[in-house]
């Protein structure tokens, strides 16, 4: 088990390094840097001025070195010009001698967001917190509901209840967030239908989340996942219901209710656990769409702003967080699967 964990961790770190290098390369391509120079030093500067701006700010060096600096494995650049020392790790007005040699992600310095004019770590923390609240409510709605649907549908395969619930789950998996969100807003928040039960934006929910400004975004994210988890639960439930020990329990005279609750349920919940964990990366997608649609300024909204405004440090930060979430959930789902199902041995 320990060797397995260790191997997975090494693979994870390797993947994270490769991915962050790819993102770093893609965000630091010459056109991006040119755009950055123009947005920082004025949009009408000449090509030669762009060159010199990039030179002055340490962008005109090999990619691997810049990546190392960002990571914090290579000492940050310094530059002396007319007696004034500037450098990656030297804040404006700071004594160069007092500045640290390394300043990268490993040291906890995520850089400075050019769009928000604030440290990336601070911004990311705030917006991630908002997304955390959203995800919490999504999970609270999605997991029990989808498990219930899956178990009810898989309990008696082929029954009318099964057909209805299965069609419902297929319909929700066929509805991406930008479709369900649009429909939900149109039905429950527009003046055309006139129900106006909920609010069409969740901007107010950042300060003070209430049922009527937060329910629609939560439902939008949850709906897409519900169908998928419910279908997996149903498949696993139907498989368990045909097992020998269920038949034995039925023949022994245990009531159907008790068979489902006592015997089938625990065994049927192993597979959905993995699926729920692997849903996180998908939820991340949904979160980006939903937050954009409802203008809820969480992590997804930040990602869109960073990408749209060529904010390189912030985009890098967002990617690291996103990749980290994906890799950690994969690890947890693998480890959790082994704990839940003792029949599986890892060697």
């Amino acid at each position: 088990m320990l060797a397995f964990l260790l191997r997975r961790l090494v693979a994870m770190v390797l993947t994270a390094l490769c991915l962050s290098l790819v993102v770093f390369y893609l965000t630091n391509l010459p056109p991006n840097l040119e755009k950055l120079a123009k947005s920082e030093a004025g949009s009408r500067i000449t090509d030669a001025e762009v060159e010199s701006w990039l030179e002055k700010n340490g962008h005109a060096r090999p990619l691997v070195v810049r990546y190392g600096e960002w990571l914090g494995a290579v000492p940050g650049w310094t530059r002396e010009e007319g007696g004034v020392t500037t450098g990656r790790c030297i804040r404006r007005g700071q004594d160069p001698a007092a500045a640290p040699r390394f300043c990268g992600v490993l040291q906890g310095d995520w850089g400075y967001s050019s769009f928000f004019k604030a440290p990336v770590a601070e911004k990311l923390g705030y917006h991630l917190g908002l997304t955390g609240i959203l995800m919490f409510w999504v999970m609270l709605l999605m997991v029990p509901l989808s498990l219930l649907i899956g178990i009810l549908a898989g309990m008696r395969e082929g029954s009318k209840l099964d057909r209805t619930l299965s069609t419902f789950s297929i319909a929700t998996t066929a509805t991406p967030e930008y479709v369900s969100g649009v429909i939900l807003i149109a039905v429950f928040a527009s003046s055309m239908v006139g129900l106006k039960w909920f609010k069409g934006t969740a901007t107010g929910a950042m300060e003070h989340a209430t049922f009527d400004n937060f329910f629609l975004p939560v439902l939008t994210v949850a709906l897409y996942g519900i169908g998928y988890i419910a279908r997996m639960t149903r498949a696993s439930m139907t498989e368990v219901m045909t097992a020998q020990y269920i038949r034995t329990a039925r023949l022994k005279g245990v009531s159907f209710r008790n068979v489902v609750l006592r015997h089938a349920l625990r065994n049927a919940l192993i597979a959905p656990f993995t699926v729920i964990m692997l849903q996180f990366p998908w939820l991340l997608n949904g979160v980006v769409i939903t937050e954009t649609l409802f203008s809820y300024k969480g992590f997804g909204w930040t990602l869109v702003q960073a990408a749209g405004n060529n904010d390189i440090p912030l985009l890098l930060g967002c990617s690291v967080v996103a990749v980290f979430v994906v890799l950690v959930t994969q690890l947890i789902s693998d480890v959790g699967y082994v704990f839940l199902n003792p029949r599986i041995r890892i060697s």
Partner: protein
Amino acid sequence: MDALGWGAILLAVLGRFWPVWIALAVTFAVSARFRRRLGLYGRLYDSTIGMAGFALVMFWVYTAVFAGGIATHDVLGQISQMKNEMPGTALPDGSGWYLLGGDHLGRDVFSRVVAGSRIVIAIAPLATLFAFMVGITLGLPAGYYGGRLDTVLSFLANLILAFPVILLFYLLVTPEIVRTGLPQYLAIVLFLFPLVFLVVLLNARYHVQPTRRNVMVAAVVLLGGWAYLSLVSAPGTRVAILPQPVDLIDVPPNILIVFVSVVFVNAPTVFRIVRGLTLDIKTRDYVAAAQTRGERPWYIMLWEILPNARGPLIVDFCLRIGYTTILLGTLGFFGLGLSPESPDWGSTINAGRRLLTIAPHPAIVPALALMSLVLGLNLLADGLREESLRD
């Protein structure tokens, strides 16, 4: 002229689709007549769910085919008095109606949705097919040979899969990246796979009949190579291999980028599925028999393993077209790739969402269209799975 009521709108819309209804009726009548001789496709007609899904999918396919005849107005034609007008509003000059209302620029929502089906129906299945070619060409050897090849390919696939899709799109489909020519280089790599796949497929099959093989392989290389080069090269960009007169297919660069990124996102998942299936099937007796017979590895992979993996692959193909449709919509929703004027469903939803609480119809109509197509594909896949498991 007066505005139409809801009933009249419904009748008028259904009436506009008359070529589609005729085509659907013919398809169903002919298929139902000969269904016992049509294999898996024929057995689809035994499952209600599968048939409903097939009808939905074919509805949009025929709509795309007859889009020119169904649309009532020009896709880009703007009439300023019709901005955000309700469905069924009559035109100011009295020459007709905007059946499903006007959007924020005064364009006809109905015609745009119909025209948008063309883009989706053209890109989604083709992109999925390309993703399958890539996934199969890499997944078969990874599963069959195993070892270091498998480790490297699986690591690469996991690398791409660990990327959140939207982040990948934002990194690949921006004007800055497009200027560096990166999507075109990706296209060069990805579009090579179908060619390689076909050549290896034919070579493995007709290896013992050299003359026949030479003719077929030469034909594929010549025709496919020409198509490949003219697909990849675009005059005036970094990749301009073919001169203008020989450049047969001229794909607009933004469509090419969307296409490439969708293939790129889908291929690793297909790779994983094919690899898993290969690992399972290669332990069967008929593979051992072929090995004993002295068949070469690629023959075994392509003509023994692949045909026996077709059931799950066909089902996944249907599901994946739906997923690709969703991805295309996502790209449009974030305004990436396709031009904002394009009538594709994602872009239309994006344009309509700003006024959602006042005038929801410009966003709702394409949203429902997209949902019905994806739902159809999901139901079709479900029906196919059910029928193929019945063997």
